[in-house]
């Protein structure tokens, strides 16, 4: 029976070591002092552009809000996903229910590292895996702009997630796999500035890849199928392929893409639909140059066939 005791001992030691390692590996990591020092005071006027590029209002305004009510970031939308229901919180300037008491450093840690002021992990339904690619100066500008928005009282309901996704600490391991400030698509030297500007908007604040790219079993985006379209994580149906591959938008010119983002009409005058309706409202607030940059980037990225299964024949 000695061998059994040895085995048991080994299992306990290894398991214990694994748990200790897991604990350290899953610890929230904040921004370093140098990055925080480089934030500087933001410019609210410039931050407005980042606010719309980032699409904050699509998830954080009250569902169905129109016009100026979209600036009341009270939260409460229910995102029903295979992991459970995520409820975007109140990020208005309310001191108690919102983020009115957050410092600029708190805000930067949330946006770039997915870490809350109290040191916990945010769920990546908050798309910090994309925001991590943003420039600290843009984070500072966004913070300044959000300071100008109204304080609205009221806490949104909590997330309703199933095990094991309800263990926040586990997100630390997820971050080790998927959180990186590096661009997704490496572009060669001599790439036009317009395409680079588009890459920043799409991969960073715009967080297009969060819905338009299929995900692996652990919920990380499959960078090898970047923007190839995906089965919708929330609700039903699919999110379209926006590369130039089979099933994608090869036939769209750059002007078509920019026009779609501005007006909501596709080249054959179908209209924007689904969750993209809110996104397009935000894109319409950007400058024509920003929309043209997004279009130029989408035409420059590697083409992929659809990242979702073909439609089943009608039954």
């Amino acid at each position, binding site marked *: 029976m000695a061998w059994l005791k040895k085995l048991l001992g080994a299992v306990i030691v290894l398991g214990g070591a694994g748990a200790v390692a897991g604990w350290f590996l899953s610890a929230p990591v904040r921004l370093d002092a140098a990055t925080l020092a480089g934030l500087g005071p933001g410019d609210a006027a410039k931050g407005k552009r980042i606010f719309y590029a980032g699409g904050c209002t699509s998830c954080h305004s009250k569902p169905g809000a129109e016009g100026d009510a979209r600036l009341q970031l009270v939260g409460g939308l229910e995102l029903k996903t295979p992991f459970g229901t995520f409820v975007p919180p109140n990020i208005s300037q309310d001191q108690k229910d919102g983020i009115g008491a957050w410092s600029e450093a708190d805000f930067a840690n949330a946006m770039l590292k997915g870490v809350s002021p109290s040191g916990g992990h945010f769920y990546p339904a908050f798309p910090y895996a994309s925001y991590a690619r943003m420039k600290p100066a843009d984070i500072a500008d966004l913070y300044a702009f959000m300071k100008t928005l109204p304080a609205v009282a009221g806490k949104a309901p909590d997330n309703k997630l199933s095990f094991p996704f309800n263990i926040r600490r586990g997100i630390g391991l997820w971050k080790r796999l998927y959180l990186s400030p590096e661009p997704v698509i490496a572009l060669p030297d001599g790439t036009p500035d317009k395409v680079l500007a588009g890459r920043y908007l799409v991969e960073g604040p715009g967080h297009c890849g969060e819905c338009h790219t299929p995900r692996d079993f652990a919920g990380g985006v499959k960078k090898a199928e970047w923007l190839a379209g995906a089965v919708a994580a929330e*609700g*039903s*149906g*699919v*999110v*379209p392929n926006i590369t130039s591959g089979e*099933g994608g938008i090869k036939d769209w010119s750059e002007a078509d893409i920019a*026009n779609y983002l501005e*007006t*909501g*009409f596709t080249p*054959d*005058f*179908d*209209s*924007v*639909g*689904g*969750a993209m*309706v*809110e996104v*397009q409202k935000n894109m319409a607030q950007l400058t024509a140059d920003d929309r043209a940059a997004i279009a130029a980037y989408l035409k420059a990225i590697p083409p992929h066939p659809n990242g979702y299964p*073909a*439609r089943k024949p*009608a*039954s």
Partner: protein
Amino acid sequence: MRKLVIAISMLAFAGSAAYADPIKDRQALMKERGKLAGQISKMVKGETPFDGAAALDALKAMQANAEKFDVDTLFPAGSDKGDTTAAPKIWEDMAGFKATEDKFTADAKAAVAAAPADADALKAQLNTLGGDCGTCHQTYRIKKS
């Protein structure tokens, strides 16, 4: 007697299936809306010169299309199955669906009544109508492929 009733109702069902295809009908009307929006958009963007009479014709056709779009006939129970991108939400919230359609009809009517005098006026109307398209497609349509 019972057999006869069943036979008649089966014939009637077969007949309605053969003569009316609400999915095709509603798709044809939607396609026409898109085509009209395309004509208007060309003038808004200056790809074709602004022509008040042609713009008004397009808006009138849009209004006629909207008035033909009878939700009860085009979205009968059971027509959520088949080659359609209509969302189940239509039948769960028929009143809400009809309200968005009614808004489109009202906006098309208002556009005709206002008879746009220049490309800018037409642009404002196209934005309103396009916004209605998006509002409805946000909730009541599912992208499937």
